[in-house]
């Protein structure tokens, strides 16, 4: 029987599930884009409020375990709040993006909410059963989101690609879980952690194989090299809001889970598994940046850049010391804001520069944007500078923390790779920035007049830009926030 406190801890999940259900009914009876979108956003806001309440309660009292399955603590709440805010941003992007959408628009919000439920379960899971259920609840709506443009063959192709590879990842994950279960006889994460810790430093082969499989499965979801092959195609095919969700919430949830696993199984860090993490990090940084170098498609470029960013994240994570948890959390935070801003601008440009029902993905759409829409272009520039890790943007603080963690553990080779690949990375971020300032081609593309600054997406973009700059110059609030999440 659930106690009141446990119910309270579950309230964000309950509210969110209720909103999703109600939204579904609302769409069935009253299909109206504005109303449905507003309802989704309201649901998210109440969920956010509930999460913050739970967070403050947890900080004052103690972490709440809801049965064996879920554990709600500061860490969970930090990531829940981050993901809810991100989903809100995705909703505003979607609202703008769907303005001219020829098909049913409203279900996109429903899919976003459903996927978010999965993500929230994932970050609070303390049991392999809830972990797996969460991961699938996150993945299944994503297939729909990616293939949302169902009359566009590339979108469908991307959806099927994601389905196949994501299912493969899930299968590997199940096999890994099975190995661990066979060894320990329990699915509870803390219990497995205790059993393994009591066996000393040498991991049994079964556990090693199990963890390797789990790491590979998570590697698929995070699109780490060499499990990255699906990424660029899926990003390219997915409509912009779905791409934004895929690049942020879907990855935050899995990365948060990985962080959690490492804190439960510290043995991962002290064994051969750390070498796997280091290898994945190094490969992802290098390959991600190298592959992005010759992209002229912004979505593909962002896809490869996200590969490299999770390489950076893994660098901080593989360091496994007192700053690595904090550095990973800060990195995720910074990456999220920069990526959302990039996708937001992409959506606005897609709406205003629509060519043959394609998104504005080619860099040629951005040529000379600064001279026509200086603020929009400035936001894009800030996002790119932030992704490149330049000072005065939030991305610099993230990279700073990662290097801090890596130096602390003397991972010199990994740091060398990080420096080299950041250098390569600059090259293509600069290409995007330069394109913004070049002279526009003499083709009139501005078909639809759209005052982006007054739309919800515009407001979101301006907030993101302010956050990127402000926290880049004065990061203390962000560091304190992460401190609250990592207690």
């Amino acid at each position: 029987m659930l106690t009141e406190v446990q119910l309270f801890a579950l309230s964000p999940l309950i509210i969110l599930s209720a909103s999703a259900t109600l939204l579904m009914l609302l769409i069935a009876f009253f299909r109206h884009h504005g109303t449905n979108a507003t309802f989704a956003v309201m649901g998210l806001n109440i969920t956010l409020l509930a999460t913050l309440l739970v967070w403050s309660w947890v900080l004052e009292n103690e972490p709440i375990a809801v049965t064996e399955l879920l554990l709600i603590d500061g860490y969970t709440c930090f990531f829940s709040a981050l993901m809810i805010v991100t989903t809100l941003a995705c909703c505003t992007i979607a609202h703008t993006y769907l303005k001219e959408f020829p098909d049913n628009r409203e279900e996109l919000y429903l899919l976003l909410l459903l996927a978010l439920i999965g993500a929230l379960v994932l970050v609070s899971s303390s049991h392999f059963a809830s972990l797996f259920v969460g991961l699938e609840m996150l993945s299944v709506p994503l297939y729909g989101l990616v293939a949302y443009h169902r009359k566009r063959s590339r979108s469908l192709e991307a959806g099927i690609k994601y389905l196949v590879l994501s299912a493969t990842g899930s299968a590997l994950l199940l096999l890994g879980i099975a190995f661990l279960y066979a060894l320990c006889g329990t699915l509870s994460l803390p219990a497995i952690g205790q059993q393994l810790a009591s066996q000393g430093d040498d991991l049994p082969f079964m556990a090693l194989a199990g963890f390797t499989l789990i790491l590979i499965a998570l590697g698929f979801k995070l699109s780490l090299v060499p499990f990255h092959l699906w990424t660029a195609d899926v990003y390219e095919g997915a409509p912009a809001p779905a791409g934004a969700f895929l690049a942020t919430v879907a990855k935050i949830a899995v990365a948060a889970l990985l962080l959690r696993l490492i804190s439960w199984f510290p043995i991962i860090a002290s064994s051969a598994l750390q070498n796997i993490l280091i290898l994945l990090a190094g490969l992802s940084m290098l390959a991600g940046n190298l592959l992005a170098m010759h992209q002229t498609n912004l979505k593909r470029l962002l896809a490869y850049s996200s590969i490299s960013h999770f390489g950076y994240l893994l660098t901080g994570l593989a360091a496994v010391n007192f700053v690595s948890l904090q550095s990973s959390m800060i990195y995720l935070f910074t990456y999220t804001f920069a990526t959302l801003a990039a996708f937001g601008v992409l959506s606005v440009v897609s709406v205003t520069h629509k060519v043959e029902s394609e998104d504005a993905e080619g860099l040629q759409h951005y040529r000379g944007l600064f001279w026509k829409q200086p603020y929009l272009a400035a936001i894009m520039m800030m996002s790119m500078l932030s992704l490149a890790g330049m000072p005065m943007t939030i991305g610099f603080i993230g990279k700073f923390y990662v290097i801090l963690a890596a130096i602390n553990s003397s991972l010199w080779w990994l740091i060398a790779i990080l420096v080299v690949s950041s250098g390569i990375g600059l090259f293509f971020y600069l290409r995007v920035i330069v394109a913004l300032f070049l002279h526009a081609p003499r083709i009139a593309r501005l078909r639809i007049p759209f005052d982006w600054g007054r739309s919800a997406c515009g407001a979101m973009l301006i907030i993101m830009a302010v956050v990127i700059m402000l926290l880049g110059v004065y990061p203390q609030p962000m560091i304190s926030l992460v401190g609250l999440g990592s207690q």
Partner: protein
Amino acid sequence: MIPDSMFLPALIALPVVGGFLCWQGERINRGVPRWIAFFSMLAVFVLSLYLWSQGGYDLPAGNGETRWRYEVNWQWIPSLGINFHLGLDGLSLLLVVLTGGLGLAAVVCSWREIQRHVGFFYLNLLWNLGGVIGIFLALDLFLFFFCWELMIIPMYFLIALWGHAAETADGTEGRGRVYAANKFFLFTQTSGLLLLLSILSLVFMHYFNSGALTFDYVTLLQSDFPMDPMWEMLVMLGFFVAFAVKLPVVPFHSWLPDAHAQAPTAGSVDLAGILLKTAAYGLLRFALPLFPSASQQFAPIAMTLGVIGIFYGAIMACAQTDVKRLVAYSSISHMGFILIGIYAGTLISLQGVVIQMLAHGISAGALFIICGEMYERLHTRDLRKMGGLWSRIAWLPAISLFFAAASLGLPGLGNFVGEFLILLGSYPSAPWLVSIASVGLVLAVIYSLWMIQKAFYGESRGHSSKDTSALPALTLRERSLLLFLMLALLALGVYPQPVLLISEGPMQIVLDVYSSVGR
């Protein structure tokens, strides 16, 4: 009355705020940004001169007494021990004055050259200058790195957006301004990450030894934890390479000629006059005092690199046909002297370095301004297409001769004092190297006079061979700008004492740390 502590933040804030106003001012009309930029830099210059006039810089640091004439220390990121810590001593002051003066020159010289997107141009120029001033004032390693990286982005835009298109298709000149800007950015940014790694290594070493996480320069300087020599050498090399790319020292120099050739005039002035000095400043302020014994060990190599730079730069300068590339290579050559002077480690050579930094900033800046003015009139930078200009442009040739003479080290001008002091001061510690280096002065004469000969004497050549008509004379703006720089250089050459006086304190401190370890 403004409290003293506000002066230093104001020095940074003036260009930054001014730059932002320039961007917005373009909405009114094109002239507004120019005047805003002019007055912002004028304010910086006047403020820095005011701070100079207040005196009090000649005091060497007493026991427990602060060595900073003005100081600001605000909390910034407390959880990492990072503070917004600015300090001004004689060395910083001189370089801030140089930045103010040359910044003013850069604003004035681009008055007519820049016609497109004027507001955004001045935004970049002023933010770059703001970042540079931040570098000269920062006393927190994080803040220093922050400004170090920060000045790169606006410079990148200056080159990429307002740079010259590639002139001809022969050889390296064929590649355009975006190529040059990318090269500049990649070189400086990657070396910047190396600097960050070195800073973090140092900070963590301090943390492991003392348990206090801090990026504060003074704290790190005063802590005397035992450093593993190998480790100290590696971290010092990280600092050195980052600064060497910016200085530039010869194996790391290849971005400089491209960047200069393609940059607009103001960008070149900024780059040669001020940005290169940040590297010398970094060596003097950070690399030497923080790692004295590793620097001592490294000194022979650094000085050899300096000599190589002197000769390489000078010989390459002799072979250039693009006048801006010629001046760029001559900068590499002059920076070789600075490198020798810094690592020689005597008070005279260090004082020479300070003078040389100022003098080279002014003379190279002026030469680039002259190149820009010639380009505005001739639309070429190719020396083979010039010639016979002496009779065609009023004022310009004579002024060029003045600055070329300064660059070759004519007594009476600032560069002579700098080079003389450097060679004199370095002779006791490395007689052979210094003897070889002084031969480099002969090469300087060759390329400087060759440039003047090609451009101004002889017959008109190239596409305008028949054209001997007069070209527009220098305007009042151009004349007064160059006159201002001439006077500064002359003053530095004839009476360098005020400068030497206020730089003596900081240089003595550098020297005390540097020579405290046994050779």
